[in-house]
């Protein structure tokens, strides 16, 4: 009773507690509720499937699931799928083995293999490249958005480090691929942006400067596999300096592009 009296002595806080408890409990219910998707279960439809200890062909096979046995699919990493057997053993099977299983509806699981044609329909493209920027080493990253199969808008940032000066540039441009379905698909592009040049600290009188930049590019995509492309590119840079003449720089680069 004394304890109760003590509780009553602080009514304001208790008033708060009841709704808080309610809130906590209902939150708990929301998260514990079967909102989480039901486990994906398939049954083996070939003589057997090897179960590896890790997601790679180099890991040992420690278990085998036989025809008719049910397995739960847990997650995927690269081309491997983590499964749990009926007895609770966990291991990895090759993704390809999934073709020899049946879902609850009696059909093999639907698997999507991304290929070149898929990625023409995809929207985003991320790329990195290294190159030669008139003697300086260049590193570039790009983000592209493909709004038609032929046309991509691209945001690029680059950093060039040379013996006499370093520079950083950012441009926005447009890229055109006349034959996007070709395995080796040429493109050309134009872009505009800014370049900041930082002369070497060892050169005494030089000053940092920032100029406008125009680019014209010619190159080609080479489809490698899945979502990866190789990209070879030549870019002609026109730096619109505040001096008498504009500066022209030729750049060659080689890079990887990934489509999302």
């Amino acid at each position, binding site marked *: 009773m004394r304890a*109760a009296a003590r*509780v*009553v002595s602080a*009514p304001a806080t*208790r008033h708060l507690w*009841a709704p808080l*408890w*309610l809130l906590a*409990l*209902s939150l708990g*219910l929301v998260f514990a*509720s079967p909102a989480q*998707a*039901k486990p*994906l*279960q398939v049954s083996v439809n070939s003589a057997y499937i090897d179960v590896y*200890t*890790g*997601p*790679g*062909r*180099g*890991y*040992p096979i420690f278990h085998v699931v036989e025809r008719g046995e049910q397995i739960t*699919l*847990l*997650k*995927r*990493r*690269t*081309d*491997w*799928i*983590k499964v749990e057997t009926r007895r609770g053993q966990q291991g990895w099977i090759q*993704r390809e083995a*999934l073709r020899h299983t049946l*879902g*609850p*509806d*009696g*059909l093999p*699981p*639907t*698997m*999507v293999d991304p290929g070149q044609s898929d990625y023409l329909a995809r929207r985003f493209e991320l790329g*990195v490249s*290294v190159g030669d920027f008139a003697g*300086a*080493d260049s*590193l570039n990253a790009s983000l592209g958005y493909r709004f038609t199969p032929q046309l991509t808008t691209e945001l690029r940032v680059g*950093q060039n*480090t040379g013996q006499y000066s*370093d520079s950083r540039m950012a441009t926005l441009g447009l890229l055109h691929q006349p034959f996007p379905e070709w395995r080796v698909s040429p493109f050309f592009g134009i872009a505009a942006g800014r370049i900041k040049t*930082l002369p*070497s*600290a*060892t050169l005494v009188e030089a000053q940092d400067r920032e100029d406008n930049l125009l680019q014209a590019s010619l190159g080609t995509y080479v489809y490698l596999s*899945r979502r*990866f492309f190789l990209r070879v590119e030549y870019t002609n840079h026109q730096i619109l300096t505040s001096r008498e003449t504009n500066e022209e720089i030729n750049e060659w680069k080689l890079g*990887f592009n990934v489509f999302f």
Partner: protein
Amino acid sequence: METRFQRIFLAAVLALGPSLAWAERDILEDIASPEVERRHVKESKLDSENFELGVFYGLFSVEDFGSNPVMGLTLAYHATERVFFEAAYGVTETRETSYELLSGSVALLTEDEREYRYYNLSLGYNLFPGQIYLSENWTFNTNAYIIAGAGNTTFAAQEYFTYNLGAGLRLYTTDWLALDISMRGHVFTHELLGREVQVNNLEARMGVSVFF
């Protein structure tokens, strides 16, 4: 007083009510509906964990400028079981050169210029997948990898195009948590001491990473 107790009970009933009802329904479902659902399985519904985010700490030795702790971040994308891409960013401090120490009064660099930062993009290859046996019942998957890439180093108010080469061992404590022990060499050319020299700055590091 009475109303207070009532209120507590009321809150408890309200709170527990739905969960009790839920439990009841679950039991009923188990009894009444013997799995009639004929769901189609799609691989795309499966959670994929191909990205790896990590932090590392180690020792970075900058030629002529001493060895110091280094720390940084990595983000990797595993394209296949063998191939992965890694972006890394690291920061370390450097010390006085032996020349500065011996001469006593000469300072080649200011305090700010002694900070050494780098970033790089690398391509890694899992060379030897394997296992480590800690005891009879305790096994961890491992991966010995080699890695190479290019990036930039900012040091002494200058930027240097930097190649990196390295190797490491990744130990998976669980599927999604890995420990990493690795060595990297960061190669670039500088003229800080008057003459052009190529340096290979060695980095030994340990890291923790999560897959998502």
